[in-house]
């Protein structure tokens, strides 16, 4: 495969990664919570798309729109009822809590859907040619949808009242309280948006990804690696980190024989370890202390 085509494939995957990581990165940046259940929300989105496709023949990209409000409510309620009780307490507590939540979700899904691999096969699963390159149709749609959502999220965070209150809470919690922002409500809204968007990412990749209850952890690990590369809570950073990981993963799979099957999932770990050893503060402005905020 020519190098440029491989690069293109990496960029398409990377755009998706940049979008997939946003929920993880923003929750970390705003609340200082490391959401170990991140991958499980990807999984829930993917199962939703699969179930809607199987039952009603609904296209996964339509499901991606439908799943947002549902998972927004799930995220909001989860934060309001449970996670707000441990937010701003030592990080280990929220870390363990989210670890428990991730195991619970994965096993509940195993009970409901069994551990079998599921897949969604859409009619446009192939690819098209453009300017001498091969574009896998689904991945291309995902890439542009991801960019569109990122722009939308950026505008939301910078132009709307709620968005500004989220940024304010991330930058200075005491000050946010002083100007009258209900920080715990902001946390719940943030969790709703982040978990909603994460599920959207899950629904979108349903056509190109085997769906099973334990597919989550690799996405959580990728989220860690991308955050180390691109930094916390910043959308351009997430995109850059996502692109880097996507390109590295794709090139390794293509140019190192057997790497895709054998080290594939380890790539994220290796990148994470390398970044932490060489630049513990992250590659860009990167991994600041969790108190630092977005």
């Amino acid at each position: 495969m020519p190098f440029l085509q491989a690069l293109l494939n990496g960029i398409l995957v990377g755009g998706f990664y940049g979008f997939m990581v946003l929920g993880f990165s923003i929750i970390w940046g705003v609340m200082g919570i490391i959401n170990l259940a991140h991958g499980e929300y990807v999984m829930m989105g993917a199962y939703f798309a699969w179930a809607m496709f199987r039952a009603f023949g609904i296209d996964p990209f339509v499901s991606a729109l439908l799943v947002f409000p549902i998972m927004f409510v799930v995220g909001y309620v989860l934060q309001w009822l449970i996670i707000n009780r441990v937010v701003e307490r030592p990080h280990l507590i929220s870390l363990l809590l989210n670890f428990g939540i991730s195991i619970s979700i994965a096993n509940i899904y195993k009970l409901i859907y069994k551990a079998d691999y599921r897949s969604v096969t859409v009619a446009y699963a192939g690819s098209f040619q453009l300017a001498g390159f091969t574009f896998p149709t689904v991945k291309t749609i995902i890439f542009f949808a991801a960019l569109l959502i990122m722009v939308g999220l950026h505008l939301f965070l910078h132009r709307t009242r709620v968005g500004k209150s989220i940024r304010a809470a991330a930058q200075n919690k005491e000050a946010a309280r002083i100007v009258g922002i209900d920080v715990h409500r902001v946390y719940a809204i943030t969790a709703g948006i982040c978990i909603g968007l994460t599920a959207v990412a899950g629904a979108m990749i349903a056509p190109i990804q085997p769906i099973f209850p334990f597919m989550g952890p690799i996405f959580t690990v990728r989220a860690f690696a991308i955050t180390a590369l691109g930094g916390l809570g910043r959308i351009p950073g997430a995109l850059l980190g996502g692109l880097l990981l996507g390109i590295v993963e794709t090139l390794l799979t293509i140019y190192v024989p057997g790497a895709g099957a054998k080290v594939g999932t380890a790539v994220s770990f290796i990148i994470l370890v390398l970044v932490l050893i060489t630049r513990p503060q992250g590659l860009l402005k990167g991994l600041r202390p969790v108190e630092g905020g977005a």
Partner: protein
Amino acid sequence: MAQPLAQTVPTRTAESAPILKIEDIYAGYGEEDILRGVSMEVYPGEIVCVIGPNGAGKSTVFKAVYGFVNVRQGRILFDGQEITNAKPQVVIQRGLAMVPQLPSIFPQMTVYENLEMGLFLERDSRKVKARIEYVFELFPRLRERANVMAESLSGGERRMLEIGRALLIEPKMLLMDEPSAGLAPLVVRTIFELVRELNTKIGLTVLMIEQNVRQGLEASHRGYVLELGRITYQGKAQELLNNPDVRRTFLGGR
């Protein structure tokens, strides 16, 4: 040196009621009471300064008023209404603004955005614009820096932004927790002059905590001395500055 304001205390008529009344409060963190029976009054148009050594509970007084710590006993009245253990949002809406000791700006927002956030609870955008315009008139420096990220302001400019933002809500009173903390001596003087100017210009009522006893009291009408969670002295600022005990303890002189 600036002329103390102590002589210009507004004359209280029988009708004038305190705008802030703290009645014998006990408050603190966890099991322990930091404040043990503190009472204070602030009248409209006054600048009142609370001084005391580290750990005396000065900041706790403010946190109690603002609902950041639990008040176990006693009452706090603001503008005739009880605000004991009220949430910060409620206290703000009653017209009590606060400039905390720790930096309270949003570093990665512009000066203008910071001011907008100060009126977070106001949904009428025309009113927000008008109020920001009003603050820009009080602080022309902030207008010049409107589109600059707050993190690149100087220490004095930051404090100015914090005060300006607090004034956006047209507060009936302003709480200031150590306005001089972390500022260069020259800047401290500017900030106190600013507070006095606001007091004469717009009749702003201020209750402040100060580590910097001399400058704090010189900028004030009245003062309270807080030690080990209790008020040990109170009176006109000039009287406290002349009080031998206060001088010995806080001013290092006779």
